[in-house]
């Protein structure tokens, strides 16, 4: 095949694989935003807190899966504590108040993580090499890193599982009901606090997975907090309340930033990967503010 086209596919694939992880981070936001109408400023801090704790447990000598299990448990506890000490006391308060509270939560998590585990950058070795998979290269001529591929697949499975939980299970139904109206959900006996614990714990686990996938590539460090910023254009493009929206938007952002870097970047002297997604988001804000699958707010009087 034409090497030009092969190269295009290689860039596209790399972008899509990175994109699934943006979807994953954005999904954490969407879950929480839908269920508790809170813009969770602490999502990035949760990513950092989760993966740093995971690496910390490994350093203490726990085997991989045990460390994973313990960290998942820890994130569930963080979810429960958030419900108990942040959401419950602030129930019925304005959305802005809750946003402020999550900013506070972000500082608490970042501080706590560094206090307990220290501030130095850690390496996270998942045992998957960041080198091209030869049989794929041989068969198709496309070079794709094993780490990228595994990360993309894990993220894709995670997204699929969440989408199924959301649409097919009882707790998913409860979650969507709560998202549509706290009062109405309470009036039929759906326990709000239980749903909140569920979404915050889920968002914590999503954060852990995202942190592990990114940490394996870039090292486990404070910069992971900023990763959550990548979710912002994804949220704007996908729509804050749409699960399928952010999944597709993550892919678009991932693919377009890599393609833009390679094909348009040279005209700007490179480095546009960092801001291209935001440009795209601004375009969406101007022409389609409700996002891709715009769940328009239903108002019928």
């Amino acid at each position, binding site marked *: 095949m034409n090497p030009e086209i092969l190269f295009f596919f290689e860039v596209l694939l790399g972008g899509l694989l990175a994109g699934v992880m943006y979807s994953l981070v954005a999904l954490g936001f969407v879950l929480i935003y839908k269920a508790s109408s809170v813009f969770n400023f602490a999502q990035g801090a949760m990513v950092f807190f989760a993966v740093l704790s995971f690496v910390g447990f490994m350093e203490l000598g726990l085997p991989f899966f045990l460390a994973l299990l313990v960290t998942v448990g820890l994130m569930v506890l963080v979810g429960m504590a958030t419900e108990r000490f942040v959401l419950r006391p602030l129930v*019925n308060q304005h959305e802005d108040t809750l946003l402020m509270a999550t900013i506070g939560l972000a500082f608490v998590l970042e501080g706590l993580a560094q206090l307990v585990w220290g501030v130095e950058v850690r390496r996270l070795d998942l045992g998957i090499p960041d080198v091209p998979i030869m049989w794929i290269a041989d068969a198709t001529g496309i070079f794709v890193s094993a780490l990228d591929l595994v990360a993309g697949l894990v993220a894709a499975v995670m997204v699929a599982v969440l989408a199924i939980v959301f649409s097919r299970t009882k707790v998913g139904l409860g979650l969507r009901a709560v998202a*549509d109206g706290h009062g109405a959900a309470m009036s*039929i006996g*759906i326990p709000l606090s239980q749903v909140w614990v569920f979404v915050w714990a889920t968002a914590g686990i999503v954060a852990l997975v995202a942190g592990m996938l990114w940490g394996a590539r870039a090292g486990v460090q404070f910069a992971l907090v900023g990763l959550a910023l990548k979710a912002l254009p994804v949220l704007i493009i996908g729509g804050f309340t749409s699960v399928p929206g952010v999944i597709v938007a993550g892919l678009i952002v991932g693919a377009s930033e890599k393609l833009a870097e390679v094909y348009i970047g040279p005209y700007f002297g490179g480095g546009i990967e960092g801001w291209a997604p935001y440009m795209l988001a601004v375009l969406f804000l101007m022409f389609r503010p409700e996002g891709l699958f715009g769940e328009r707010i239903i108002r019928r009087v």
Partner: protein
Amino acid sequence: MTMTATRTAEAAAGPAAQPILSVRNIEAIYDNVILVLRGVSLEVPEGSIVALLGGNGAGKSTTLKSISTMITAERGRVSKGSIHFRGERTDQLTPGALVGMGMVQVMEGRMCFGHLTVEENLVAGAYTRKLSKAQIRDELERVYAYFPRLKERRTSQAGYTSGGEQQMTAIGRAMMAKPRMLLLDEPSMGLAPQIVAEIFEIVRDLNEKEGVSILLAEQNTAVALKYANYGYILESGRIMMDGPAADLAANKDVREFYLGMSSDGRDSFRNRKSYRRKKRWI
């Protein structure tokens, strides 16, 4: 003789069994300062329909929310008096606990889950019950039997159905919890007269066939008194008058102030309250 008349007579002479709900002298307060109910007492006999009447801001919704404890979700609380449901004191419980005991409130403004389908709304109503898939199907069929229109619209997004269908969805959803008692807050709000009649017929059906006791808050006094056995009239957080529905409907003051009729019996539209208000959310 109409059905309403026989039922009213029955209830008036009704047995002195323990009421399913009894509210004794409650005060309700929002934000710790706004005292809205100033000593409300009422009873709902098992199996009856009781109407709670009164104008805007009289405290009807607050009374229902005090009973269902939903008032706690609006920074309010019952600060005095007591509420007993099925013999148990309930004023300090949670809405979820009350749903479990068999009391469900259908809130004012027919709060459906707008992005869920009609059927998902109904299924959500059974959230507190541990049911198998097959049992849920049976329960859905039971509810659809009362609301055939909902069965037709089962896959529509609730937010895009008509006002009447949304009200039916809200009532049907409450029925999925298999309640012994429903608290209905202004089921007629914003609906055309024939839809109001349709909904009240269904409510009466539920009352007769399922044996659900009903306490309904209404500004539409005429319709409420037509279907209820007994009525209370609330004004500024106090019960001003109560009695069998037929007696209230015949009462001169009620006719003048709440039914908009002059004393010679003619309907004076000029004085009539506007029932079809703009929808308010909470």
